[in-house]
């Protein structure tokens, strides 16, 4: 995979939220991938290792907490940073999964962009999935 821009994976079951966040990031020059729940997000991670994951917590099929544990279980190096974006105003859940940041909906666009720019992993142009055995 060859990417010029950092890839942000947005995981949310709400189609409007997905559209809006992806639009915001796209305009700022980020590459974006989207997933509607944790299971899809794991597939996206396997396809194209993102440089940051924006993760909702309350989702069908696989919620954000379960996804985060599954992601850590894959032992991807270097670790993909996660920022939780949730309508649940409890930041402790984000802390419990080792998230780098927490944004409670509704949050400001500038706050989102600040969290993204400060947490996005140093970008690698060619990035095959590497795992610890």
């Amino acid at each position, binding site marked *: 995979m060859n990417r010029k821009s950092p890839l942000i994976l947005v995981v949310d079951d709400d189609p409007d939220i997905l559209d809006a966040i992806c639009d915001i990031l796209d305009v700022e020059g980020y590459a974006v991938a989207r997933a509607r729940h944790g299971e899809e997000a794991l597939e996206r991670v396997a396809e194209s290792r993102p440089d940051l994951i924006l993760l909702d917590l*309350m989702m069908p099929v696989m919620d954000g907490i379960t996804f985060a544990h599954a992601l850590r279980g894959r032992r991807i190096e270097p670790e993909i940073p996660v920022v939780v974006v949730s309508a649940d105003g409890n930041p402790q859940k984000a802390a419990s999964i080792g998230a780098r940041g927490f944004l409670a909906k509704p949050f400001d666009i500038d706050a989102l962009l600040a969290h993204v720019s400060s947490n996005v992993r140093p970008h690698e142009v060619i990035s095959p999935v590497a795992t610890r055995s």
Partner: protein
Amino acid sequence: MRSAQRESSAEAKQAPRSKDGGRAGHLAFVAHEMRNPLSTALWSAELLARLSPEERGGPRGEKLAGMCLRTLARLRHLVEDHFLADRLAVHGIPVRIEGIPLAEALTAAAGRVAGARYEAAVDGFVVHADRAMLERALEALVAVAGRDGTAVQVAAERGQGVVRIQVRGAPPGEDPFRLPDRSTPSDPTGRALGLLAAQSVAAVHGGTLEVCDGGYLLSLPVDPSGEER
């Protein structure tokens, strides 16, 4: 009349809330459900404001305006359904009973559901109800039964002192009248509280809303107060 309303209001309060209780969990769900469209509405409005006048008239401006309007409509459904159910529970809305041709109420209600496709066999039926509340209940039922573009069929029949209104379309989920809480899936159409509101409307009229034959059955008494009108 007033005491009858109070009794039925008390039922409205009990019916939807008794199965699971958990008022705090319910309010957490409502807050969660509202924050998503509120976020999108705020973002799209802010992004629109950041566009140049030329961009605002272009495809991106059009997309953002559509997103803003769609999510505000979604938020409106949630707010109105939430407060209708809650105000009925505390007798906060006067119930003005009148005779309403069901076909007329259904036309008005379905007209407010975007993309609704329905067939109705309700001509000649007159329901004694509060017009605004009846239309809100029918609107919710048409929207919920018509989710994902499903065609809706509405039929009516007379029973003993009641009019039974059957609304069929997309099959009801498991335990559809359970008080929505944190475990309830989010509804991107904003109708997550519609059944709760419709059930409260039924109860305040001394009627019921239940699942029957794979659809919803709204039963309203012909004369809930027992008074002459």
